[in-house]
Structure formats: C-alpha cells, structure tokens
C-alpha cells in the first residue's frame, strides 16, 4: 500500500514519535502522520478525513483508547480503517475487550520495530 495516512493516538508525544519511527523503519510508506493526544482529539482528526491506519494507546486522560474505539464505530470515515492498539496493558481481558470493540491488532509496549511491522503490514496489504 502506497503513501498511507496514519493517525497515532497516545498521550505521550515521545511515544508518538517512536511509533512513527517504527513504521518508517518497517518500510511502510507513510505519506502523512496525524498525531492526537487522546481519544477526543483522535475522533476529531478522523472527522476531518479518513485514515489508512490508526494506532492507539489505551491508557490516556480525557478519553481512553477503548472509548475511542467505540467512538470510531459511529464514524463513516473510519468504517474500513484498521485500528491497532499499542499499550502497556498486556492483560488478556484488555486484549479481548479491545478486539471485541473493533481493534484489528494489539501490540504490547515495550515493542520492537519488527513487532510493529508484523502486526501492521498484513492489515495494509488487505486494505485495498
């Protein structure tokens, strides 16, 4: 998939930069990165225009990642966008919760660029 638009939602600006770097290191052709510090900002960004990929933290102030996932369900712009959660919460119940709320994948922090590639690339190949 060429020149994708990615939304990275995380309350940590440093983590958003790390995720972006991992995507580029993974050889994913990123055209544009939009950053959001919580779910509210994330939903606003999706309303501005559709994304090809969304990566979201879970633990965030204002609106957490699971509420963000629920909010995305109501947006036409997000219908075909794969969402991958990137979080320190590695518990099975949280993974199940995120997947049943519509996430397509789950990456636990700390992670390697290879892990990001492994989870994200198959979602992009099947997207178009």
């Amino acid at each position: 998939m060429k020149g994708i638009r990615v939304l990275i939602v995380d309350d940590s600006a440093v983590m958003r930069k790390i995720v972006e770097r991992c995507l580029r290191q993974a050889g994913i052709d990123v055209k544009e990165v939009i950053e959001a510090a919580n779910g509210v900002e994330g939903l606003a960004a999706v309303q501005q225009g559709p994304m090809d990929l969304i990566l979201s933290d879970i633990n965030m102030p204002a609106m957490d990642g699971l509420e963000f996932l629920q909010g995305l369900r109501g947006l036409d712009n997000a219908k075909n966008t794969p969402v991958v959660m990137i979080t320190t919460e590695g518990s099975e119940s949280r993974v199940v919760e995120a997947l049943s709320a519509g996430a397509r994948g789950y990456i636990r922090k700390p992670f390697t660029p290879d892990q990001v590639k492994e989870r994200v690339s198959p979602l992009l190949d099947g997207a178009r």
Partner: protein
Amino acid sequence: MNRSLAERSASRARPDASWQVMMQAAIREVFQLMVGTDIQPADPPPESPSGGVSAMVGMAGALCGVLRLRCSEQTAVSIATKMLGGHEPGALSDTCDAIGEISNMVAGNFKAKIAGLCDACMLSVPTVVVGVDYDVYSLASPERVEVSMTYEGQPLWVGLEISS
C-alpha cells in the same frame, strides 16, 4: 474496575525474593527495546536513591501500590534523547514525558512477569515530579521491592511500594 479484576484482586499478590529479579529483568528489557541501552544492576547499590526526576505509576487490583523511578535530570535527558532517535528533547516536558512512559512500561512489563498479576492489576497514567526537595508519605508502612541500576555509569533507581 471490571469484574474479573475485582474477582482476581480478592487474592492479593505478595512479594517474594523473585520479584527483585523480575523487576531487574523488566527494567532491562524496557531499556533494551525502547532506549537501545543495556543497563545493569548497580554493584554495589547506592545507599539511597538520588536524582531530580521521579516518575510514579499507580497500580491497583491484586497489587495496590506505587512504582517510582528516579534518576538525575541529566540521565533523564539522555534517556529521552535516545528514545527520540538522537534528537535532544526540546523542553523539560518532553524529558518528563519520556521518563513517565519508561516507568509505565516498566510497571506493565513487571506485572506481566508475575504469575496472576497481569490480568488482575491495572496501571494509572504516570506522574512525573522534577526537583529533589520533596518527601513521599505513605499511610501504611508498605512492603517494598527496590532495584538500583546503572545507566551509562549513572544511578537509576526503581522502587515498588506495596500498600494494603
């Protein structure tokens, strides 16, 4: 708190000798993967924690307590710089952000290593304090797991205070 967490937290996790080893392993993995630096346990450990940057993450569920990571501001800037791919953080807030995330990942990675804890304990958003002139008061006298590490020759201390 979801139902399974409430159920599981009925049985409190109790620290044993393995927790210190698990904590060291959790810290080393986070630093290897996110900072690109191999850090080692301090030998001998310093007498008391020092440094002007402290990050705290609350834990609730089968384990209730606070994980605290402390290092000097210089060390914190170095860690943040490496996390940012060699770009020095523009502001103190970016340094705090980086140290907060490190503490969050250490707490998450640690609980994932303790049997029965991963699913039964949740983490708070991290808080970072800058400055050396502060005291921490706990209501109960808590059990502690403390680990002193060496990051590029400089001390880095992680303590887990377990309440209740």
